[in-house]
């Protein structure tokens, strides 16, 4: 009798321990080096071209539907948790812009699917249901049951690819984490990735759209490592002779940019930089001097939708980002690359969409190889 009871107790204890170790949902989601992306389909499908000669590709950091609201994290603001109506208002503006440009493939950055700050609206599904896109793939960048800072709460933000045609495969390729943060901050911080999607583009057996959003505020070489991995993924496709379009928010300036220091523009009123007693000397993410050549390799090996010489001839025309709502766009951070050239003159930096994000969408047409 005693032995039987003892066995029952041991069994109960063992079960409890097993439950603890295998069943507890992590507070912060961490990722394997390679995982599948999360697939989406629009509630109702719209017809897509069956033999396109060219496609329009767009990249857009939509700032999680915050529009011009001065969000605390990146625009000298104090807002943290947006209302549902604010988010829907901005998402409607984004959808209207997409409907007017009619891109065939869209690379999205900073899209929320289940975040407290954006009223838990699944923005990927919402965009699919309110635009001409039929299919989507999503890869989380920042996913946690709670971010215990500034009242952010639950977070699920990431990158996404939307397409008129079916996405047959989506891979989330993990990028290195920032190396300049303490362990606690790093644990709750963003986990950048490359979202590599295979799209059933009519006329092509294999075709990929690749989306990246690199580190914005790292002060070490984290972003360089991320850019190198991005290029290596493009190199792999080139080696296999597979066509692709790629791009995203690279958080880097073109190598021939003339202004490299945005510290004084980006700083809050209570911050000070460049002074003899200031430490650090530069604001995180605002001083591009040491990293100005980091995109050179991409420009040397791939065809940019906006070539460097065109950019250099009229920089402000191609600016796609600002942190100051009262001033014009003042830097270019958003890019499109491919191996097969873009159609000359087809590019557009849509600075008229300023109301809907702190980034302008960038689009260009790409000729489908026959």
């Amino acid at each position, binding site marked *: 009798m*005693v032995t039987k009871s003892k066995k*029952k107790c041991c069994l109960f204890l063992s079960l409890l321990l097993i439950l603890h170790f295998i069943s*507890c*949902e992590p507070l912060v989601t961490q990722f394997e080096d390679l995982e599948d992306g999360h697939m989406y389909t629009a509630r109702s499908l719209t017809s897509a071209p069956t033999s396109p000669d060219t496609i329009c590709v767009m990249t857009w950091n939509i700032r999680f539907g915050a529009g011009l609201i001065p969000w605390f994290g990146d625009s000298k603001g104090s807002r943290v948790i947006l209302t549902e109506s604010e988010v829907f208002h901005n998402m409607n503006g984004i959808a209207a812009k997409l409907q007017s440009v009619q891109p065939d493939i869209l690379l999205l950055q900073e899209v929320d699917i289940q975040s407290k700050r954006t009223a838990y609206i699944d923005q990927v599904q919402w965009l699919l249901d309110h635009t001409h896109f039929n299919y989507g793939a999503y890869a989380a960048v920042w996913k946690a049951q*709670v971010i*215990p*800072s500034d*009242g952010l*709460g*639950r977070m699920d933000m990431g990158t996404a690819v939307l397409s008129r045609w079916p996405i047959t495969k989506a891979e989330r390729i993990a990028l290195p984490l920032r190396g300049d943060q303490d362990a606690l901050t790093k644990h709750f911080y963003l986990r950048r990735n490359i979202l590599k999607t295979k799209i059933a583009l009519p006329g092509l057996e294999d075709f990929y759209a690749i989306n990246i959003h690199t580190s914005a505020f790292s002060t070490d070489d984290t972003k360089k490592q991320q850019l190198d991995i991005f290029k290596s993924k493009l190199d792999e496709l080139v080696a296999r002779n597979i066509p692709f379009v790629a791009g995203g928010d690279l958080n880097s300036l073109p190598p021939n940019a003339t202004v490299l220091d945005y510290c004084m523009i980006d700083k809050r009123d209570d911050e000070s930089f460049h002074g003899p007693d200031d430490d650090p000397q530069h604001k995180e993410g605002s001083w591009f001097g040491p990293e100005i050549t980091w995109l050179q390799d991409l420009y040397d090996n791939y065809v940019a939708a906006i070539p460097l010489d065109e950019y250099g001839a009229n920089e402000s025309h191609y600016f796609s980002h600002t942190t100051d709502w009262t001033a014009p766009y003042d830097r270019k951070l958003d890019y499109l690359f491919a191996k097969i050239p873009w159609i000359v003159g087809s590019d557009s930096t849509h600075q008229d969409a300023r109301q809907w994000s702190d980034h302008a969408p960038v689009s260009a047409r790409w000729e489908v190889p026959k």
Partner: protein
Amino acid sequence: MNKFTMPLCALLVFSINLSGQSLDVINLGWQNWSIGTAQVLPQQRVEIGVFQPLRYGYSEKMEFSVHPLLFFVAPNFDIKRKHAEIGGISLASLHGLSYPTWLMRLLAREGIGGLISPEFNIPHIISVQNELFVSGELLSSHLLTGILAFNFAVKSGPLDPRTTIDLPVVYIRSGVYYHDYGMRAGVDIKGALAWRWSYVLDGMFFYYPKAESDINMAFEHKGLLYWTKSRSFQICLGYLLSYGEYPFGTQWHLLPLVDMQWGWTRKGR
């Protein structure tokens, strides 16, 4: 299958899962370690746990309790009174007050530790809880308790619904601040296993009638295994299974529970 079916089934399953083990060594009486039952602590006995309230047996029929860790940021005080014991069935009620405003304002901060956005104003909130316990012995070594509770909150102004902390345990319990009043019903069974081992299984159903229908209920089930060294000390290990309707949808959580509890009797009066 409606949304109430699954929690009710779970409640039923564990409620009838009685082991029937005999009570050998730890027959310390139901009054000790009696939280969650219709028993009150013996007069002048004090009990406290790392995560349990500080409880004091004021008389044979009344006990007082506070959560000491929370007290300085969320003042709280409960009185539990045993009303009757008839034919082995005990009846008690608990009445408590808490003032969570300071804690919520503390959590509404910039930077690390901010669980609520500092952009919101937190009004003064007083929460009142009222619970009814009915306990009866089963098979001489198990105590079955039914619990019914009605809570309500009064506020000095509106509380923005975006200030919720959407985490298990916290979201469910703070629902009364946002929805004015709420109800709970549950069952708790505790008993001896063997030697110094005992168990507690409970289930609690939460309901907020004024909340929108997709965020108005929750269910929690707890399983704890206790090792009792003496009347003065016990340690427990277990789990909390929580199902809740949150602003982002429904979710199950399984959380580990560990606690140490101490008890003693005050000398003299």
